[in-house]
């Protein structure tokens, strides 16, 4: 992997951590999904994201490999947005998180793939994967939102409770200078709104960076469940440092 400038390194860490952390969360569904087919779909998405994370993390730091970055960094050194570290909750909660993030990632990769940054090749490939992720989230939002009274209520609850983590998505990331963040936010809002309304749900309202803790994942400030997730993810590597696998 070619070395990238330092500013890009920060960006690689941000994008790579997003993909890594969400991939881990989706991996937690293995064996627990509502049906076998959905198990496959979630695992597929997790694998796509893990693939992106591997490329991005190996671009991030010339001195550390992807494993060191994934397994030996403290919570405060992770640069993912807080949205992706949120626990799975019920299926609707997971789908709401997928909808918010996949629309964001798809639009972001779309912009990057048309640019000249070191991320353009990865984004060009990732844009196809994220199109599928977005489609999967859309399909399930429509079914749950326009399903039974109970699934509708749960889907709405998922969208509402994760809403306060969406503001962070549009904060400019150091090193991604060519991204038009205002256009990204506009496109995201429009797309999410059209899915939410088609699913006969209400667009969440209220602050998009609500609680004191929300909105600082890119600075290394994370929500409480993230520490427990990392403990599980990093346990083996920390118990046997330096082992090859």
């Amino acid at each position, binding site marked *: 992997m070619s070395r990238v400038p330092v500013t890009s390194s920060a960006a690689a860490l941000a994008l790579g951590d997003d993909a890594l952390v969400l991939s881990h969360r989706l991996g937690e569904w293995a064996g627990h999904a*509502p*049906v*076998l*087919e959905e198990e*496959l*779909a979630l695992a*597929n998405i997790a694998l796509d994201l893990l693939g992106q994370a591997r490329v991005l993390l190996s671009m991030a730091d010339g001195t550390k490999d992807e494993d060191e970055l994934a397994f030996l960094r403290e919570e405060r050194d992770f640069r993912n947005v807080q949205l992706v570290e949120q626990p799975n909750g019920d299926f609707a909660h997971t789908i709401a998180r997928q909808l918010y993030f996949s629309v964001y990632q798809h639009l972001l990769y779309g912009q990057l793939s048309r640019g000249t940054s070191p991320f353009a090749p990865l984004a060009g490939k990732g844009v196809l994967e994220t199109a*599928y992720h977005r*489609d*999967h989230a859309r*399909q399930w939002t429509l*079914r749950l939102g326009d399903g039974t009274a109970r699934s509708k209520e749960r889907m709405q609850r998922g969208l509402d409770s994760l809403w306060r983590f969406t503001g962070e998505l549009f904060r400019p990331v150091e090193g991604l200078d060519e991204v038009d963040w205002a256009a990204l936010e506009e496109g995201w809002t429009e797309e999410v709104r059209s899915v939410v309304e088609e699913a006969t749900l209400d667009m969440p309202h209220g602050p998009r960076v609500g609680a004191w803790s929300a909105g600082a994942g890119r600075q290394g400030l994370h929500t409480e469940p993230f520490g427990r997730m990392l403990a599980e993810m990093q346990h083996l590597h920390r118990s046997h440092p330096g082992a090859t696998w």
Partner: protein
Amino acid sequence: MSSKDWPLWEVFVRSRRGLSHTHAGSLHAPDAEMALRNARDLYTRRSEGVSIWVVPSAAVTASSPDEKDPFFEPAADKPYRHPTFYDIPEGVRHL
């Protein structure tokens, strides 16, 4: 999950270089849209350029195994059924 809400679908896949759709297997899905997406995950691993058909299993009428003989036994003693005993004229290609 009841089988009424998640009926069985038959999946036919044509690979990128394939000439026809081949039966690949079956899966459960709530509707055709989801069946297509599940088929993509299960049977194509997302290789580009493939075509997928999904058909509700209930829509497939199969020949009965009991009637196999009358259905499929070729009438070998009626050679006029096998158009093999004429010469192909020169100049006719791709025959």
